[in-house]
């Protein structure tokens, strides 16, 4: 299992792959024993495709791979796993209706006399879950009860439990909170010390110093540069990834805050949201920080009327204070929302960019029920240009667009609707660095025109980059507020300190 440190474990040479257009062009990669080799690149650079080829998910069109002395040409994910190369997918590959234990061991359920041996199964599941810090969860609980972040951890636990020589992680922290990411990094370091080699795909610059032994940069399917160690100047990496000088200081200084555009008073929803009051002023981006399970998503959904509130009131601008009973009322009142699970709740993946960009109540481009097609096309083109959406045409299905471009489509929809308040839930999750900068700039422009934004994010760097104020949530409450100039330690401490004393409610503790 352990290779001598430094020897090449997995070598890929001249790998090429084309779908309709070339995605990888003669890329070579060495993976040494006990290293974390980071693959960086913006979306479309080919890093995920390369990882998928290594993990046996897709075959390469050209090139060879060797695993130690033997050729590595897995025909499937299972074949790669049998050879000791295990890949954790970015798209989650789990079954919500099954228990955690079943999800972890689905392809190798322990059995006795043909029946599933539940005792063994659950014992092993607890061990596997402990490895990712979820040891306190009941392995019999259905996966559906977990949020996106914890599901990702389960997926990682599933991979870690396999005896592997090479572990491939494709943007594993995209859905994780800071604390969960820390835990994951600890495990990666431990595995590496045991001799496992890791291929780590990411576009988050802040993770490099913490984890990388080597960084390879890809751009447009080609190998661009390699750096030893994780301390690479961010500016240089951005330049290498984008092929142009990095846009520094994208978050411009904020305009002075104006009138209150969103006032939430005493909002409650069961144990998830408890007596939350807050205000967002025009010209302001207000951040929501907190651990996974702190209630950020639930708060945003409750304000928006997507989940029913049990008490409280919401007021938009000079409107009437009251509860919004449905997203329809919220939108009519001038609120828009970028949901956490953009692929499921925000977009119709099989439909065109045009359809998605104009998915609005009443379809503004319609005449007495009939769609005015030329007007619709013009409106979609306007959003495509204004939001800098990178697509082949407005008829391209959004499922084919990168995460950043998908988010720009949703954002463009709300700006076209003329809303005053935007609720953003993890707006740049799974979005590459360049698109992230664009989205932040568009949000800033929106508030500068008089709008207000309430933005939940598990990434402190994002909150720092864009927010004028940050509210910290724990156990469904707002427990602290910070003005610009806060430190990571202060915010993290606030999130934890408030979470621990209320650990009577399991949510606060186990998250």
């Amino acid at each position, binding site marked *: 299992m352990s290779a001598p440190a430094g020897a090449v474990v997995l070598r890929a040479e001249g790998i090429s792959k084309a779908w309709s257009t070339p995605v990888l062009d003669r890329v070579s990669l060495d993976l040494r024993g006990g290293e974390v080799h980071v693959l960086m690149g913006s979306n479309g650079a080919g890093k995920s495709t390369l990882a998928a080829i290594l993990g046996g998910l897709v075959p390469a069109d050209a090139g060879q791979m060797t695993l130690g002395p033997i050729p590595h040409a897995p025909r499937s994910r299972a074949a790669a796993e049998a050879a000791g190369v295990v890949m954790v997918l970015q798209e989650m590959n789990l079954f*919500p*209706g099954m228990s955690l234990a079943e999800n972890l061991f689905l392809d190798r359920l322990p059995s006795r006399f043909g029946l599933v041996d539940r005792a063994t199964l659950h014992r092993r599941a607890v061990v596997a879950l402990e490895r990712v810090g979820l040891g306190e969860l009941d392995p019999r609980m*259905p996966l*559906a*009860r977990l949020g996106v972040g914890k599901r990702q951890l389960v997926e990682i636990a599933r991979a870690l439990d396999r005896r592997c020589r090479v572990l491939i992680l494709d943007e594993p922290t995209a859905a994780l909170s800071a604390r969960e990411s820390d835990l994951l990094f600890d495990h990666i370091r431990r595995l590496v010390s045991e001799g496992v080699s890791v291929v780590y795909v990411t576009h988050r610059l802040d993770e490099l110093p913490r984890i990388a032994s080597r960084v390879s940069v890809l751009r447009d399917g080609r190998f661009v540069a390699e750096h030893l160690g994780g301390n690479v100047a961010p500016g240089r990496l951005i330049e290498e990834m984008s092929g142009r000088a990095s846009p520094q200081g994208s978050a411009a200084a904020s305009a002075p805050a104006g009138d209150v555009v969103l006032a939430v008073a005493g909002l409650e929803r069961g144990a998830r949201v408890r007596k939350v009051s807050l205000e967002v002023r025009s010209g302001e981006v207000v951040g929501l920080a907190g651990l996974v399970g702190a209630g950020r998503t639930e708060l945003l959904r409750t304000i928006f009327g997507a989940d029913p509130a049990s008490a409280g009131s919401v007021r938009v601008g000079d409107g009437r204070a009251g509860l919004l009973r449905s997203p329809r009322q919220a939108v009519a009142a001038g609120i828009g929302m970028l949901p956490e699970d953009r692929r499921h709740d925000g977009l119709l993946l099989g439909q065109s960019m045009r359809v998605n960009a104009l998915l609005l109540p009443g379809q503004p481009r319609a005449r007495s029920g009939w769609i005015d097609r030329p007007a619709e096309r013009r409106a979609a083109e306007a959003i495509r240009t204004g939001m800098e959406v990178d697509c082949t045409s407005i008829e391209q299905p959004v499922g084919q667009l990168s995460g950043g471009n998908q988010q720009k489509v949703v954002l463009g929809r709300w700006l076209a609707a003329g809303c005053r308040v935007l609720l953003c839930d993890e707006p740049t999750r799974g979005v590459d660095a360049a698109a992230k900068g664009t989205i932040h700039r568009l949000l800033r422009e929106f508030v500068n025109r008089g709008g207000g934004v309430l933005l939940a994010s598990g990434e402190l760097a994002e909150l720092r980059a864009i927010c004028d104020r940050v509210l910290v949530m724990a156990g469904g409450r707002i427990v602290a507020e910070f003005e610009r100039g806060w430190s990571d330690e202060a915010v993290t401490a606030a999130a934890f300190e408030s979470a621990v004393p209320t650990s009577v409610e399991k949510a606060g503790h186990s998250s």
Partner: protein
Amino acid sequence: MRHARSAGWLGLTTVIVSLVFALGQGGCSRPAGPGNTSGGKADGRPRIALVMKSLANEFFATMADGAKAHQATAGNRYELITNGMRSETDVSEQVTLIEQMVARGVAAIVIAPADSKAIVPALKRAADAGVLVINIDNRLDPEVLAEAGLKAPFVGPDNREGARRAGEAVAKQLDAGDEVAIIEGIVTAFNGQQRALGLEDAATAAGLRIVARQSGQWEMEKANGIAAAMLSEHPALAAILCANDSMALGAAAAIEASGRRVLLSGFDNVPAVAPLLADGRLAVTVDQHGDRLAVEGIETALAILAGAAAPEDRTTPVDLVTGKP
């Protein structure tokens, strides 16, 4: 998720409840006597179950009405439970009905079997439980009956003879060598087979050529499509002989659409064919007196129960009903 699951259960419960209601409607026409289930007699009167095929088929609806009228006018000599199924061909549903009737302690079951063979084991179990079985309408297969060791007197018309006479009536208006087509019923049912044989007998005897023969599954819609196809495939077709009136109605519409003059025969004499008989679009149909059929069966059962008659077969009369020439 949890919400969705409970909604699923709610849905399932709703369906089950509605199904129970649907069955309940077709169930007993008369409440059971108070607290008395012994020996198949309520208030000393024998309890008789009439088990039919689909009550949606008006032949059986007529039969049920006849039986109820008889029960009411016969001075409450017996207690009647009428049962029908939801579909013509669901054998397992009829088996369930038989079992339920045995459980309710009836003295006799008067049954129009959905299938000539498959229903026999269930009837045998009923007979073993001491229930008298009277077979009406569709005759149970004699070989299977013998094998099962079940004696079930058959009270009903001779389907083959009825069909033969209908075919004969049509043949009289044709010349030897003319082309005819047969639309038969469900091929697994004994009465369907008998009627097809009878039609065939008549055609062969008159020297007619049978150029097409398909099953219309007893259904109007199916028979309509088949008749239309027969008409276009056989331009010289002179007559279509159908094994029941529902199928004859479907065929009549097809003939009308083709604009041709083709003779047509049916079987059962349901009220809906009256206008067709009146203007001659239907040449002939057979009345086997469905309303009397169940009554004859019940009378036979009562006589045997009272020890006044031996358990043997009885043939009931069939009559031809001819249309305007």
